[in-house]
């Protein structure tokens, strides 16, 4: 299990290959990667991601551990960036390895749902007309009721 909170970019392919190179008892590997979307208006200059150093690592580790306790998983990876990102940049990724695909998929979705609403990150969109904090979506909070 690895949790990384970092400003630097990460290489999705290198991370996926390294993660999948583990234990051959795991027949199923799922990755989820979040990418900074350009706004509908197409004028996103930068996405700023603020976080709460200390609590962030603690919250992500707790979420990853809960996933490991709940599903039969061989391994879990969580990487989340903070700082300034541009459209197309990769914000974060999670990966799960499991003997069976259902566990790998469910655990990855669980990680994402909790990470969205329970890890202390805040996004701000900076455009040529100003800067705005991204509002939390009710649907993200509602997603937790599934688990």
């Amino acid at each position: 299990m690895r949790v990384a909170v970092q400003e630097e970019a990460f290489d999705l392919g290198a991370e996926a290959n390294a993660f999948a190179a583990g234990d051959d008892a795991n027949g199923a590997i799922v990755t989820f990667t979040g990418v900074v979307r350009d706004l509908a208006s197409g004028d996103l200059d930068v996405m700023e991601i603020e976080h709460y150093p200390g609590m962030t690592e603690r919250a992500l580790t707790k979420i990853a551990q809960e996933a490991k306790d709940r599903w039969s998983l061989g391994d879990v990876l969580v990487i989340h960036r903070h700082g300034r990102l541009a459209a197309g940049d990769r914000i974060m990724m999670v990966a799960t390895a499991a003997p069976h695909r259902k566990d790998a998929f469910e655990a990855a979705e669980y990680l994402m749902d909790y990470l969205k609403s329970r890890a202390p990150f805040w996004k701000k969109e900076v455009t040529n007309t100003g800067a705005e904090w991204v509002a939390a979506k009710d649907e993200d909070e509602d997603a937790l009721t599934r688990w």
Partner: protein
Amino acid sequence: MDVLYFAWVRERIGLPKEKVDTQAATVNDLVAELSAREDRYAAAFSDLSALRVALDQELSDFDASLIGVREVAFFPPMTGG
């Protein structure tokens, strides 16, 4: 006690962190104390349903006790991922 602010709470109050001397028993008491200080606090805390609080880096509630707590953080709902 260290009090931290993030995202628009930080911007509205105008600082990321401060030391607060308080006898407040609960988070709600602390919020009332801070709000009474200056308008910028009152503005930031005007709608608690739009805020979250963490005590010693664990999510908590506004009616939680502050006994033994060293670090309180206020912030809007999280938007990671």
